[in-house]
């Protein structure tokens, strides 16, 4: 097992949800838990890149999906990885009905708020999973 938790977002590009998942993931790996979590390209993984495949097979993974199609989870599993936790932006939206993100390219205020909430949730999960590794 590698030490760091691998957080992989779907990075869907058609709706704000994919952008929120991606933004939250980058908050976690670059700002909140850089010592405990990392990410890699979903496409690299699926295209069979040797290093990425080794990484996904040797890591505890968190899938972050924007929409109900769950592409991140499916692709991680296709690449031979095991999903230890699954975060869905749609679930977060249901819990925060007052927030209505609309922008995809650059998140608007509501998108930023949802990203921050999701990032905290992912970071907490990273802590739990790394504790479990000890």
């Amino acid at each position, binding site marked *: 097992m590698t030490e760091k938790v691998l957080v*992989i*977002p*779907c*990075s*869907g*590009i*058609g709706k704000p949800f*994919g952008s929120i998942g*991606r*933004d939250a*993931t*980058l*908050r976690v790996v*670059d700002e909140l838990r850089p010592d405990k979590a990392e*990410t*890699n*390209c*979903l*496409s*690299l993984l*699926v*295209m069979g*890149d040797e290093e990425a495949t080794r990484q996904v097979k040797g890591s505890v993974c968190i899938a972050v999906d924007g929409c109900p*199609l769950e*592409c*991140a989870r*499916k*692709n991680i599993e*296709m690449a031979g990885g095991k999903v230890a936790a699954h975060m869905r932006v749609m679930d977060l939206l249901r819990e925060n009905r007052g927030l209505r993100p609309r922008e*995809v*390219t*650059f998140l608007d205020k509501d998108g930023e708020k949802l990203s921050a909430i999701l990032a905290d949730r992912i970071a907490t999960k990273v802590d739990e999973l790394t504790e479990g590794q000890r």
Partner: protein
Amino acid sequence: MKIKPKVGVVSCSGECCSHGTLSRVATRLILEGVRPETVTLCLPLFLAGDSGEREFAQRFPTIPVDGCHKRCAKKAIEKYSGPTAADVDVEALLEEWGEEAPASRRVLSEADVELARRVAAEIARRIDWVQGERDA
């Protein structure tokens, strides 16, 4: 009569570096104003096996926009749907222009957004070329 074919643009997912963020933002800029008649395909969905996305890339000219030299979007389209109509490698463009990649992969500065606009202009040039090539 000239009939312009619909063109699909596919950004790589590009989570591992800020080149990927540029490819994603440039692709969105195409849809939001530079060439709004263009269609984007969702690469994760395409990779997960969605038949609609793959069929689109088989039937219509498609341009992958890859962040780095690994060219995952191009390889994926070629593997599952056939040859691409043209392609963009953001890392190669930055090398050609003598520009640095953005410092952050999450938040782009004004200068980075300007860089994304330049990449979008390159994508638009290829769209125009593809449509011109195929004028009826």
